[in-house]
């Protein structure tokens, strides 16, 4: 999440610089960064959603120990000559 937010801040800063520049190719660059901004916002929303799900299902993130099933054997379950 921190990486995503850092990347988002860099993209926003680049967009601001481009919008204030006189570069003739800036429109293409702005479109490129705006597209990246949309993608990163989707990733951030997904991470937030995953986090909320983990909080709702706390045992998924805790310790889970699998217990084995026990067996009690009684001979002669079919016939009477066990």
């Amino acid at each position, binding site marked *: 999440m921190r990486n995503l937010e850092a990347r988002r801040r860099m993209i926003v800063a680049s967009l601001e610089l481009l919008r204030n520049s006189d570069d003739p190719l800036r429109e293409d660059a702005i479109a490129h960064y705006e597209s990246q901004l949309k993608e990163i916002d989707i990733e951030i929303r997904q991470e937030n959603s995953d986090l909320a799900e983990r909080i709702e299902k*706390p*045992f998924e*993130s*805790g*310790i*889970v*120990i*699998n*217990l*084995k*099933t*026990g*067996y*009690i*054997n*009684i001979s002669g*379950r*079919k016939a009477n000559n066990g």
Partner: protein
Amino acid sequence: MAEGDITILNNLKRQLLLKTIDFVNDVFKMALYDFALTSPDGAPVYTTISEIDPTNYVPGGVVLAGNAVTQDDVNDLAKFDLNDANWNSLGAHPILQARMYDSTTASKWVLAYWEILTGSLGSNYKLRFGAAGVFLIM
């Protein structure tokens, strides 16, 4: 023995024959210990001796709801099952054994125990029964 291995106590078998345990209506509980019983002999009962006492652990352990007794004529067996045992944010503590006991009977007999090697760390702690149930009579 490995983590999760079960030992069914001989007393469980005896009490089945004596009709003293009602697996549908009795309340079964799971308690955690940092000392392990090593023998299925005799008739051990629930005790607070060596029972763990970290944060969010209530002496006596947790109730295991969902009692289910079923008969399987295809595989020629009867099955006893319960819901898993859960502790929320169980404080850090070594755990060596989980003991299931019948808290309805006056004696509170331990019926089965499982070897545990993983202690609690402060996070949620779950003991998950096997897909085949707590135990089968075959």
